[in-house]
C-alpha cells in the first residue's frame, strides 16, 4: 500500500506527519465548523420539535467525533490519544442512532418505542467499553497501541451498519408510499443521510479492517468519509430554503453566501506558506466585506418591499373591516323596510287583508309606500358608494351651469317644510354676500349635498321645546371675490370630538347618531364631501356635543363662463341614454 509522505509541511496549529491523512484539514475543519454553526442556528431559530433536537444532537456528536479524531491524530500525548480513542464508537453510534431518530421524527407520525428502545440498548455495551477499564481491555488489543480487538470492531461496525441499513429500509418504504412534495422532502432527506452515514461508517470500517490486517496506518479513506457531512448540510439547507424545513425561512442568497464564505475562509487552514496565508486571509476578508454589503443591499430592498406590503396589508384590512361593517349595516337596513313590504304582501296574497278595517288597510299601504321609498334611497346610496371614484361627482363642464345658491337653498328648505313643521324647527337663510352668489356647478349634485346636510340637521336637532329653540341656519358669506362660503348651523346633538376626523368617511356613523337613528347608512356626509370637493370646494366642521354642529363649505365662484343651457340639455339626454343602454 502506498503511503503518502507529507513530511514537515507547516499548517496552522501543527505540522503534518506522515501518518496524517492526506486531506486531513479539508475533511475535518470545514465539517466541524459548518455542522456546529448549523446546529446552533437551527437550535436557536427553529421551532423546538423532536426533529430539531435530533438534528442538533447529530451535529454535536459529529463535531465531538471529529474533534476526537483531530486530537487522536495530532496530539503528541499518547495518553490523551488513547483516552479519546475509547469514545469513538460511542460517538459514531450516537451519530447513527440520532440520524435514525431524526429520520423517524420527521417521516413518521409516531415513534415506535419498542424498536427505538431495542436500538438504544446497544448503548449499554458501548458505554461499558468507553467508561470502564474492564471494557477498555475487551476493546483494545493489549500492548498493541491503538489497535482494537476484532470482536469489538465487528460488534461496533455491525450495529452501526445494521442500523444504517434499517434507516434506509424505512426510507425506501416511505419514498414508495408517499408522493408529491412530501416524497421530494423524504428523498432529499434520505440522500443527505445516505451521504452522511455511508461514507462515514463504511469507509471507517474499511480503514479499520485494513489497519487490523496491517495494510495501512493512515486512515485516508475514513477522513474522506467526513466530507459527507457537507453534503448532508447542503441537503438540509436546500430543504430549509425550498420547503421552510424546521419552520425556518431562509433566502437562497444568504445560504449561498454562507457556503461561499465557509469554503473561502477554510482555505486559510490548507495553505502552507505565510504568503499564501496572508493572501487567502485578505481575499477572505474581502469576500466577507463584499458579502456583508451584498446582504445589506438585498436586505434593505427586502425591507422596503416588506414595508410596502405591510402598508398595503393595513389598507386592505381597513377596507375589509369597512366592507364587513357595511355588509352588516346594509343587510339589516335593506331587510327592515322589506319586512313590512313582504308582510303586507303576504296578507294580500293569502286574502287575509280583507279581514282588516279600511283604516288599517290604508295604514298598511302607506307604510309599504314609505318603505319602498326608503329602500330606493338605500339602494341609491349603496350603489353610489360602491361605484364611486373621486371623479364621480366632479363637475363636467358640459353638464354644469351657474347655480344661484340662495335660490337653491330656498327650494330645498321648501321641500323639507313638512319635516321642519313636525319638529317645530326654525330654518333661516341669511345672505350676507354683497355680490351674486352663483357657483359653477352641476345643480343636481349640489342639491344632493345640501339636501343631505339639511336632512341631517333636521334629524339630529331635537324638536323645539322650552330649553331649545330648534334653530337651523344657512349663512351665505363672501370672504373674497373668488369664493362663496356657506355655513350650515344647527342646535342639535353635536359630534364627539374624537369622531370628527372619521365623519366624512364611507359608512361612518357617529355613536350618538346611531343611538338616535338606527337606520342610517353612513353615506350621507361621505357623498357631501365627494360632491363639494368635486366642485373644487372644501368642507369643514365645527361641533360641540349637545350644543350643535356647523358645517362650513367653501365653493369657488365662477361667473365668467356663461351657461349654455341648450348644450347642457343635449348632453343630459345623451348621458341618460347611455345609462339606459
Amino acid at each position, binding site marked *: 500500500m502506498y503511503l503518502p509522505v507529507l513530511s514537515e509541511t507547516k499548517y496552522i496549529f501543527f505540522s503534518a506527519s506522515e501518518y496524517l491523512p492526506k486531506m486531513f484539514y479539508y475533511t475535518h475543519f470545514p465539517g466541524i465548523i459548518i455542522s456546529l454553526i448549523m446546529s446552533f442556528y437551527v437550535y436557536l431559530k427553529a421551532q423546538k420539535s423532536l426533529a430539531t433536537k435530533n438534528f442538533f444532537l447529530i451535529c454535536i456528536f459529529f463535531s465531538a467525533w471529529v474533534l476526537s479524531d483531530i486530537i487522536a491524530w495530532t496530539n503528541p500525548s499518547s495518553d490523551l490519544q488513547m483516552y479519546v480513542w475509547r469514545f469513538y464508537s460511542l460517538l459514531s453510534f450516537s451519530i447513527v442512532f440520532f440520524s435514525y431518530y431524526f429520520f423517524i421524527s420527521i417521516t413518521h407520525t409516531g415513534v415506535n418505542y419498542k424498536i427505538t428502545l431495542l436500538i438504544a440498548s446497544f448503548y449499554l455495551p458501548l458505554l461499558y467499553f468507553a467508561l470502564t477499564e474492564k471494557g477498555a481491555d475487551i476493546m483494545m488489543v493489549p500492548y498493541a497501541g491503538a489497535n482494537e480487538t476484532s470482536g469489538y470492531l465487528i460488534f461496533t461496525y455491525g450495529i452501526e451498519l445494521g442500523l444504517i441499513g434499517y434507516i434506509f429500509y424505512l426510507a425506501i418504504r416511505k419514498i414508495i408510499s408517499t408522493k408529491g412534495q412530501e416524497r421530494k422532502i423524504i428523498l432529499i432527506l434520505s440522500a443527505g443521510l445516505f451521504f452522511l452515514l455511508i461514507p462515514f461508517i463504511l469507509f471507517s470500517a474499511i480503514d479499520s479492517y485494513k489497519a487490523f490486517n496491517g495494510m495501512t496506518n493512515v486512515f485516508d479513506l475514513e477522513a474522506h468519509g467526513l466530507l459527507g457531512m457537507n453534503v448532508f448540510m447542503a441537503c438540509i439547507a436546500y430543504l430549509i430554503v425550498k420547503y421552510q424545513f424546521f419552520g425556518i425561512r431562509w433566502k437562497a442568497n444568504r445560504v449561498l453566501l454562507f457556503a461561499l464564505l465557509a469554503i473561502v475562509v477554510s482555505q486559510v487552514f490548507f495553505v502552507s506558506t505565510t504568503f499564501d496565508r496572508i493572501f487567502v486571509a485578505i481575499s477572505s476578508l474581502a469576500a466577507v466585506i463584499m458579502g456583508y454589503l451584498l446582504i445589506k443591499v438585498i436586505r434593505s430592498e427586502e425591507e422596503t418591499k416588506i414595508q410596502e406590503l405591510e402598508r398595503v396589508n393595513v389598507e386592505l384590512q381597513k377596507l375589509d373591516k369597512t366592507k364587513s361593517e357595511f355588509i352588516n349595516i346594509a343587510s339589516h337596513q335593506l331587510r327592515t323596510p322589506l319586512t*313590512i313590504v*313582504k308582510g303586507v304582501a303576504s296578507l294580500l296574497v293569502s286574502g287575509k287583508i280583507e279581514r282588516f278595517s279600511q283604516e288599517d288597510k290604508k295604514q298598511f299601504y302607506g307604510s309599504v309606500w314609505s318603505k319602498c321609498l326608503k329602500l330606493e334611497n338605500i339602494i341609491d346610496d349603496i350603489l353610489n358608494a360602491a361605484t364611486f371614484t373621486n371623479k364621480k361627482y366632479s363637475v363636467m363642464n358640459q353638464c354644469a351651469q351657474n347655480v344661484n345658491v340662495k335660490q337653491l337653498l330656498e327650494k330645498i328648505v321648501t321641500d323639507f317644510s313638512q319635516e321642519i313643521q313636525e319638529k317645530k324647527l326654525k330654518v333661516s337663510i341669511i345672505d350676507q354676500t354683497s355680490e351674486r352668489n352663483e357657483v359653477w356647478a352641476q345643480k343636481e349634485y349640489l342639491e344632493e349635498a345640501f339636501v343631505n346636510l339639511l336632512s341631517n340637521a333636521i334629524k339630529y336637532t331635537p324638536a323645539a321645546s322650552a330649553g331649545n329653540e330648534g334653530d337651523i341656519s344657512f349663512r351665505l358669506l363672501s370672504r373674497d371675490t373668488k369664493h362663496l362660503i356657506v355655513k350650515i348651523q344647527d342646535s342639535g346633538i353635536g359630534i364627539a370630538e374624537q369622531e370628527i376626523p372619521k365623519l366624512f368617511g364611507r359608512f361612518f356613523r357617529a355613536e350618538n347618531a346611531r343611538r338616535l337613528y*338606527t337606520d342610517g347608512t353612513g353615506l350621507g356626509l361621505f357623498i357631501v364631501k365627494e360632491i363639494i370637493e368635486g366642485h373644487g370646494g372644501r368642507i369643514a366642521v365645527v361641533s360641540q356635543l349637545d350644543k350643535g354642529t356647523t358645517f362650513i363649505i367653501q365653493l369657488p365662484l365662477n361667473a365668467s363662463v356663461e351657461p349654455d343651457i341648450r348644450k347642457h340639455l343635449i348632453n343630459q339626454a345623451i348621458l341618460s341614454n347611455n345609462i339606459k343602454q
Partner: protein
Amino acid sequence: MKKVLFIEDDADQLFLFRKRFDLDKIEVFPARNSREAFDTLQQLRPDVILLDILLGSENGLDILEKLKNDPAAKDIPVIIFTNYEREALKRQSTIDMASDFMMKLKVTPDQLAEKVLNIGGKEG
C-alpha cells in the same frame, strides 16, 4: 287567550304584526325599551316575549340577559325577532338563552302568529 310581550321600537312593524295577532285573538303588549318591558312584566305574565335587538340606545341582548336573571321572568320563552343574521352577531352564548331566533324578513305575519299560538300548547 295568548299574551305576547312585544319588545320593538319600530312603529310600522309593531302595527303590522299587532294587527295580524288581533285576528287570532292574540293579545299584544308592546314595549319600546327595557323599562317599559319590565313595567309590563310586573302586571302580567305573557306566554311569550318577542324581542328585537336594535332598540334605539339599548341592545336587546342586554334585555335578554336581564330577563333570564329575573326569577319571575326567566321561564317565559323569548323569541329573538330581528333582521340581523344570527351568525353576524357576537355574544352567541347570550343568544342561546333565547328559545328561538327568527329573522323578521324570513317570516310572514301569518307564520309568526302561528308560532305564537303553538307556544306552550294550544291554549295558554
